[in-house]
């Protein structure tokens, strides 16, 4: 082995040396790290940094949202009323539960329980899928009511609230204010769309993890990938925790 010649001195090598004494590296230790601890430190730090870039990405959109919400508050209130709080609430509950099952999956992986880990991952995946299904139903309703920004956007619900059960009883908006509801829905679709895209990517990764987990890849002591995926999943969850009140709960006291 080249490595045994390379690892010769230095305080940090102590752990690696100990491993040698016990008959070689653990198989998951990559060649350029000196010890398992160094590898774990580096990769978890990298994951946190990656999540930081994600914060900046969503942060850009939150800034856009906050500026327009400040400028066009009545339009944003009226737009927000069109969203279904019950469905949004159910989705929030689904996603928080999925974070819980994700944590259980990580715990099971650490405890080296393959069956439990797979079960929890399947549950997480299913909760994510139901979330996307509910989101799809909400999108469909918006299409039907012509609340999707673009050429076919309709101001009917805001100019004439009584024509729309969701807006019935509210004060009609003047035309110039009503037109700004389109911006609300632009941001609604852009932000929830980006969030959904992150979930779809996450579910793709989850499918990959499930595929490998059957062979026991994560229940043999090296759980790093599942743990980092869990961090990603929690992050996606947290984004929703911000999106839900910002989009659904404006002025619903």
């Amino acid at each position, binding site marked *: 082995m*080249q*490595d045994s*010649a*390379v*690892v*010769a*001195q*230095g*305080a*940090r*090598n102590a752990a690696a040396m100990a491993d040698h004494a016990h008959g070689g590296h653990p198989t998951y230790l*990559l*060649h*350029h790290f*000196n010890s398992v601890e*160094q590898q774990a*430190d*580096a*990769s978890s*730090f*990298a994951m946190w*940094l*990656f999540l*930081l*870039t*994600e914060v*900046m*990405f*969503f*942060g*850009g*959109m939150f*800034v*856009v949202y906050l*500026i*327009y919400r400040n*400028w*066009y508050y009545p339009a944003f209130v009226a737009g927000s009323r069109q969203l279904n709080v019950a469905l949004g609430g159910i989705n929030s509950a689904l996603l928080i539960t999925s974070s819980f099952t994700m944590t259980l999956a990580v715990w099971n992986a650490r405890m080296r329980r393959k069956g439990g880990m797979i079960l929890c991952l399947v549950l997480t995946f299913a909760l994510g899928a139901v979330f996307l299904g509910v989101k799809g139903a909400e999108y469909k309703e918006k299409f039907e009511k012509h609340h999707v*920004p*673009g*050429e076919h956007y309709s101001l009917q619900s805001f100019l004439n609230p009584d024509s729309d059960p969701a807006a019935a009883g509210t004060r009609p908006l003047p035309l110039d204010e009503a*037109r*700004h509801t*389109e*911006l609300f829905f*632009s*941001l609604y*679709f*852009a932000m929830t769309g*980006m969030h959904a895209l992150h979930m779809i990517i996450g579910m793709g990764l989850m499918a990959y993890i499930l595929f490998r987990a059957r062979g026991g890849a994560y229940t043999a002591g090296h759980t790093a990938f599942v743990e980092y995926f869990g961090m990603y999943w929690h992050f996606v969850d947290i984004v929703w925790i911000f999106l839900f009140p910002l989009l659904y709960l404006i002025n619903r006291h």
Partner: protein
Amino acid sequence: MSTSTIVRLPDQSTARIPKDNFITRENGLLSWLLTRDHKRIGILYLISITFFFFIGGALAGLIRLELLTPQTDLMAVDTYNKVFTMHGVIMIFFFLVPSVPATLGNFFLPMMIGAKDLALPRVNLLSWYLYMAGGILALYAMITGGVDTGWTFTTPLSTHYVNTNVITTGLAIFIAGFSSIFTGLNFIVTIHKMRAPGMTWFRLPLFVWANYAASILMVLGTPVLAVALVLVVLERAFGIGVFDPARGGDPLLFQHLFWFYSHPAVYIMILPGMGVISEVISTFSRKRVFGYTAVAFSSVAIAVFGFFVWAHHMFIMGVSNYAVLVFSLLTMLVAVPSAIKIFNWTFTLYKGSITFETPILYAFGFMGLFTIGGMTGVFLGTSGTDIHLTETYFIVAHFHFVMVGGMLMAFLAGIHFWWPKMTGRMYPEKISQFAAVVTFIGFNLTFFPQFILGTLGMPRRYASYPPEFQILNVFSTAGATILGVGYLLPILYLTWSLRYGAIAGDNPWQATGLEWQSQSPPLTENFTVMPVMDHEAYDYEWLEQQQERENQKEVASAG
């Protein structure tokens, strides 16, 4: 030029390139395309960014040729718009941003801190593929009709008034942005977690500090550019109206998001270059960099201040007077850490034993040209003069002094400085000194007249101009031709040196960095024995003692 030199080469009659090194370890195209070795990825990047540099350079040549005469005679106005846009897009996103970090940084940063590789080798390879995917997509957009918004994609021009490949180019930059994010992320993790025993933060070479600061900007800034581009693409594809004044959107908001990245991006481009200059100045004046700590922290200060100056690109775009006041002040603050660097390099040279090999000639070029570029930046940061000078050739000259005069000089300094380490062979010294001088003359002839043109009021981004500006434009085009020769020469002689250059040995410059303590070209695992850092950075006495010990060992074994 004086004949004294620090170059110490092994006896050419017996010297050989080490048989086992990172180039010879594995053979075949696949061993390169699937490599996880940071040095090989650095070489892949070097080849690809050189390719994009020459495309961007050819476009620059077309621009200068069109501007030789006051009329629009070489190309139609629309074509001219596309040519300068693609010149900007390619040079900024596919050359300047990755130039030093992805090539020299990739290759040398792990070696300098005594690591075997970057912390995430697979992510590193992925970042090269993302870069290539973005680059190819950008070229595809260029060939299938181009884009004519300028590299800034300013709304509402980019969203409503042009019908060119904005979406494709936007996606290309989006993808290349991830490449940049992954490089930055990898560097930060590597510098934090992979340092050799004894390599404390304040023993890091200043090149590492500079790349660390640039990496922070890459990681925090690039995602905001990504989201700005996503919103432009959504606007064009679905008409979501976020930047459309007709629907209550604010086009200026796009510029805020865009410049929140794109101003720090100029520091992403220049900081690694400053790192190169620190290494070169110290090595060729045989002195520790004066005020090491100040130079290290000035990199971080530039990165931090860099995030709070973006609106100075928008002084005439309708931001409030108070914003102008604040951003003007903050902009001038950036001049402080930049000046700290220039002064400290000057003090390093003071009473140093300076020799005049090619890398330091480029470094001198950097110091002079960057100073002019930086000082004219203060003119532009002052709102009173900015209103007169913005959107004129003064701006063009200013950022080319910083980017071409600064960054490109630093890049070439770095390439020459580390060429012996990368390839094991020396470049030919005389002709490369000549090329450095040609580049300097060509550069000044190209861009100095543009300062004058700008103060006279010649606007940028037009294919034609009033006849009284012609003489200065002729100078500029003539200079660009000389500059082109200055860039072609290194390509020729560096390629030549791959086969015929003198064998360099481990440490031809007698430099102190850890990368020079390994063989040239290095082994795949960089070091045979894990290095232990037991001295400060740029400790030339330590190096002398080290060599003394080795000599004694040789004498002892011979006797």
